[in-house]
């Protein structure tokens, strides 16, 4: 079946690139684009072809309690589609952008390893396997953050590496405790055994996982590394990190563990609510004072992650719908904004909003797509960000949490204010710049236009009729909580 190919294709591409690439990057570009588009096609195919069934795949043909199992359900396919879209466009965007930094195949090899790690985290159904893939993704992320080899980038990468390692060890402690309590590492078996045990184990392990994956997702008390790492990386990597890595490694795994394995304990849902709200407000407050465009966007990632956590914490089907929808939307518009920042940086050589200006003439595609993305992230109809934020706010009101809804609205207004600042000072600034240092090629424009179109198209996912086939199966997987056990243990075997 197609399930293991989500790991095999990018891994094979990474190693073949390092094997056959010479000094130039031609072969590396061709191979990685082929691999990435193959993944895009596969993930779209798997999302369309499967409706509500769960497919498992036993690695090495060892059946469930003994071997590693890969699990594919609607949530998995949904996140895989998200990762594939963003990695494909980022790759197209990087072809010109990275040549501007250096002509090297190593970038593409590392990029493919990053995709491998994320795909692995998403499709695995085994705790330790998750840890291993997470480390693969993180290592390539550390190296890619430092890729431009400037002093700031090494500093950010070191900070990120230290934080990443500490959080990984916390997660490993959690996995060790889970194993010692249940004597199994398969998530479905763990979920089956946990209710028969002392209730305190879930609290302890949940607290450790909350800290570990909270660090990966950069929710509020654990956010310190994110603005540095995400703003220092090359633009396509910033968009990968902000767009999908923090979601695949942080949010997705939290959804999987806290809903499908731990059966959504009340206390952790409350923690999600509080952390989410704090992240929304403090992230946006810190963002509004920034003049560095990429740093501003990085702080907004914290704030938008807050919305997703808030939606998850509400824990009604509507709240989960909003969280899942916002997860997808944020990947698209935040990646687009980072592409815009990257192309402005490449054209003008600066990221300072005060030194920009006259961009409507110089970079028409960049400024128009950035307008769409800004409206989308601030929640202006008819763009996708509006619908997901609206759903989260309505869900909060329906669940009897009016204060949280109010904070979400305030966060959204402040987001609008900070993006008005970006548009006012950055793209329509008064600094007169006659010529750009570098031209923006068609590949970069293609990546930006694709995502700008998706910003509008994905808002159709809430239209009745389309919602039933796209978002509802995903919400069902999460909202049914530990029905996951029966789905995996009695699921279709795809071997």
């Amino acid at each position, binding site marked *: 079946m197609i399930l*293991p190919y989500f790991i*095999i294709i990018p*891994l*094979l591409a990474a*190693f*073949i690139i*390092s*094997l056959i690439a010479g000094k130039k990057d031609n072969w590396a570009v061709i191979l990685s684009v082929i691999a990435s588009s193959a993944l895009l096609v596969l993930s779209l195919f798997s999302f369309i072809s499967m409706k509500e069934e769960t497919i498992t*795949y*036993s*690695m*090495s*043909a060892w059946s469930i309690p003994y071997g590693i199992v890969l699990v594919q359900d609607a949530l998995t396919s949904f996140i895989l589609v998200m990762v594939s879209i963003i990695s494909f466009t980022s790759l197209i965007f990087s072809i010109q952008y990275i040549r501007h930094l250096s002509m090297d195949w190593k970038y593409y090899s590392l990029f493919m390893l990053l995709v491998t790690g994320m795909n692995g985290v998403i499709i695995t159904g085994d705790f330790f396997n998750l840890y291993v893939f997470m480390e693969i993704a993180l290592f390539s992320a550390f190296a890619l953050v430092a890729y431009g080899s400037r*002093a700031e980038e090494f500093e950010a990468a070191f900070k990120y590496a230290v934080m990443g390692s500490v959080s990984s060890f916390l997660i490993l402690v959690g996995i060790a405790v889970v194993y010692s309590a249940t004597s199994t590492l398969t998530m479905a078996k763990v979920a089956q055994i946990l209710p028969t045990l002392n209730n305190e184990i879930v609290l302890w392990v949940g607290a450790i996982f909350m800290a570990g994956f909270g660090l990966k997702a950069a929710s509020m008390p654990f956010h310190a590394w994110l603005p540095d790492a995400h703003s220092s990386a090359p633009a396509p990597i910033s968009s990968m990190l902000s767009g999908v890595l923090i979601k695949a490694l942080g949010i997705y795994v939290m959804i999987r563990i806290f809903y499908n394995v731990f059966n959504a304990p009340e206390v952790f849902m409350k923690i999600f609510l509080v952390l989410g709200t704090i992240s929304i407000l403090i992230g946006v407050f810190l963002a509004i004072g920034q003049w560095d465009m990429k740093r501003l966007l990085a702080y907004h990632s914290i704030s938008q992650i807050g919305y997703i956590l808030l939606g998850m914490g509400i824990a009604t089907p509507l709240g989960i719908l909003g969280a899942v929808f916002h997860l997808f939307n944020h990947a698209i518009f935040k990646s687009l904004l980072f592409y815009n920042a990257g192309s402005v940086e490449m054209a003008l050589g600066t990221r300072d909003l005060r030194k920009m200006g006259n961009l409507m003439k110089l970079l028409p595609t960049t400024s128009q797509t950035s307008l769409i993305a800004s409206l989308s992230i601030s929640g202006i109809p008819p763009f996708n960000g509006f619908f997901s934020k609206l759903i989260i706010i309505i869900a909060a009101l329906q669940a009897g949490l009016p204060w949280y809804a109010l904070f979400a609205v305030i966060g959204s207004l402040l987001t609008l204010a900070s993006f008005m600042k970006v548009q006012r000072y950055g793209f329509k600034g008064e600094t007169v710049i006659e010529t750009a240092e570098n031209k923006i090629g068609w590949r970069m424009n293609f990546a930006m236009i694709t995502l700008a179109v998706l910003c509008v198209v994905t808002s159709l996912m809430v239209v009745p009729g389309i919602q039933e086939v796209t978002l509802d199966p995903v919400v069902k997987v999460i909202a049914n909580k530990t029905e996951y056990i029966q789905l995996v243990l009695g699921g279709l075997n795809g*071997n």
Partner: protein
Amino acid sequence: MQQNEGMTLIVKTVTRISVWMILLYGIYIIFHGHLTPGGGFAGGVIVALAFLNVLLAYGRKFTSDWLNIGFLHDLEAASATLFLVIGILGISMGGAFLANFLTKGELFALISAGTILPLNIVIGIKVGMSLFLVVWVLAGFKIEKGD
């Protein structure tokens, strides 16, 4: 001045004899991974240490003449690719990724346990080359006073 010349004659002579034994021991550990403790990773580390002994005793220049560093890079990438190829062969011949498709053989025989032996060999090469190259690269950093 002579920082790349290596260590004294005594060290060089001992290394010249011992490096082959260490290498052989590493290969033994790799090949017996399915029977005794050890296997690809442990054996690969020992192989890397054998090369590192040469690097320490004889210095950088001799080692880069003796070993073709570019070839080691290729070997490393090739062994990783080979691991995946064995895994994919498992799909077509054994039914699942990395599934066993060779005969399981007799218990405690050297040629037994199906694909575990080839996988151990591939991992041994990969780990040995990677570890050696990591130290090689880290030792080769030239610190220049920067900005």
